[in-house]
């Protein structure tokens, strides 16, 4: 029987020759992830197993990234619980503040993700690692606890949608615009329970950061995972960050896809998702005049070095609109340092933006940039639900780093194509 890339990875980890969509399997995990919000619940559940040791202390990653550096006493208590568990169980991949970065940027950078891996994380954006040819998916805290205890998780084998890419993206158009376009096209449940598999000659023109962004937001279409074919770009990243031999699973000829979408990348325009769903998209040419109060550039979706470079290119030698609070979050310490070395942080500060230590912070309305009633933000984050960044009557417009930076300068949602480079 022919299988998709995702199905082949699942079959290999369930020790069977083949799986089919809908089948329930128990599979072996390569990595189990949790953060300061989800791990405390998982640690309490883990205690119910009545065992002393985790299944493998080198295959668990604990990242205190959401409400850190601790935003209040309750958050501090949760981080303390996770830190004590990590030390007690000898968890190798616990990242204290100073080493911590936003989990989905951090894990690939630390070489904890390999092509062909099966990864669960108690965070919905765990699907990010499909950029490197891994099957990775978000789960809850009980699954995380089960994974830590047994090294296994149950899966319903997903069917799949194929996105066949041709051409290449235009200037100022990025992976963010492509994934927003796709979510706008298929809806927030358009890929429910399914894999989104990205294939075709257009893939080669997408850099690895664009691919992380695209897989990161697969969940916003309801998908179980997003995954790219492993090519030279992915292999180059893996070789630079990971010492293990990559396992490449290609889709079988004749693999069944429930739908196939042909996308010519050259037709994608800068795209913005209006409140309050990521599928509520409009191309930049149709956004109208939307005044804004805040811009956020960062997150597990768009806080990587290429994102910061694009923002810097637009902000260089200019000042942000004095009405717009502009907050920029490099996603990891390594990215922070790289941005420092490249002079990007100086450009941001001179433009009137603030630069924060890595944290998920405002993306989920945690801290470091909460919106008041009636305020509007353009954010490079991943969700614009009611109350996502603060007050229930505030609004989030999702966009690329280029649109966000152009908007910071203009004071309203702006087309990066209209900004003159200085």
């Amino acid at each position, binding site marked *: 029987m022919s299988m998709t890339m995702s199905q082949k990875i699942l079959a290999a980890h369930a020790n069977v020759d083949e799986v089919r969509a809908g089948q329930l399997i128990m599979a072996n995990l390569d990595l189990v992830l949790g953060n300061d919000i989800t791990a405390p619940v998982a640690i309490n559940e883990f205690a119910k197993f009545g065992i002393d040791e985790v299944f493998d202390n080198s295959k668990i990653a604990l990242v205190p990234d959401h409400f850190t550096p601790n935003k209040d006493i309750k958050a501090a208590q949760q981080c303390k619980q996770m830190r004590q568990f990590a030390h007690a169980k000898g968890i190798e991949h616990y990242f204290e503040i100073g080493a911590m970065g936003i989990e989905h940027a951090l894990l690939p950078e630390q070489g904890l993700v390999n092509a062909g891996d099966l990864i669960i994380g108690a965070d919905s954006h765990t699907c990010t690692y499909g950029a490197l040819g891994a099957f990775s998916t978000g789960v809850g805290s009980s699954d995380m606890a*089960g994974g830590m205890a047994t090294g296994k998780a149950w899966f319903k084998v997903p069917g799949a949608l194929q996105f066949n890419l041709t051409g290449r993206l235009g200037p100022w158009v990025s992976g963010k615009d492509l994934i927003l376009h796709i979510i706008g096209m298929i809806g927030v449940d358009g890929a429910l329970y399914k894999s989104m598999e990205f294939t075709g000659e257009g893939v080669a023109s997408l850099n690895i950061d664009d691919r992380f962004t695209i897989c990161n937001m697969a969940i916003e279409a309801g998908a179980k995972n997003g995954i790219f074919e492993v090519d030279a770009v992915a292999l180059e990243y893996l070789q630079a960050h990971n010492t293990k031999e990559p396992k490449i699973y290609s889709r079988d000829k004749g693999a069944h896809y429930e739908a196939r979408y042909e996308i010519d990348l050259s037709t994608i325009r800068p795209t913005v998702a209006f409140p309050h769903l990521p599928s509520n998209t409009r191309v930049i040419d149709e956004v109208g005049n939307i005044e804004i109060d805040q811009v956020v550039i960062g997150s597990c979706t768009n806080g990587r070095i290429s994102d910061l470079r694009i923002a810097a290119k637009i902000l260089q030698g200019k000042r942000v609109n004095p009405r717009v609070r502009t907050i920029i979050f490099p996603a990891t310490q390594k990215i922070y340092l790289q941005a420092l070395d490249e002079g990007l942080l100086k450009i941001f500060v001179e433009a009137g933006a603030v630069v924060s230590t890595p944290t998920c912070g405002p993306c989920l309305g*945690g801290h470091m940039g909460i919106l008041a009633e009636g305020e509007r933000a353009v954010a490079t984050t991943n969700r614009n639900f009611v*109350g996502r960044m603060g007050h229930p009557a505030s609004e989030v417009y999702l966009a690329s780093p280029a649109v966000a930076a152009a908007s910071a300068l203009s004071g309203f949602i702006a087309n990066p194509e209209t900004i003159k480079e200085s």
Partner: protein
Amino acid sequence: MRVKGKVFRYASNVDTDVIIPARYLNTSDPQELASHCMEDLDATFVASVTQGDLIVADENFGCGSSREHAPLAIKTVGISCVIASSFARIFYRNAINIGLPILESAEAVKGIKHGDVVTVDFSKGAIINETTGESYTSEPFPPFIQEMMERDGLINYLKEEVLQ
């Protein structure tokens, strides 16, 4: 098992950020989470819900984050069952893993209004709208999931099936 209660009726795409806003995720205490359940969507929900009531919603219930705090808040506040036309997959998984009964039935969702009194008989997969007298059926769970629910969730299942 049978449950009976009045219905809180919501539309499509009820996301986990409105079920339990992230500003309350600095705790994992179920009672505290329950006290803010649905707050940003329906500010009167917590004050008017009573033990055994049901939530009925359209498509894609529970979309968004993986926070298990969402089904936990719903379960702890006293909701006996969530019926939806479809569920977001992580919420679906979490609800099963923690033992919050959920049912998929587009037909029932169509026929049930806010405030209706509904009985659910889980063994038969039957949903009865006591207010209108109509009844509906839901798809039974696959045996694997039924077995997990009978053992009161994932942890017990794994304890018995994998660790033993």
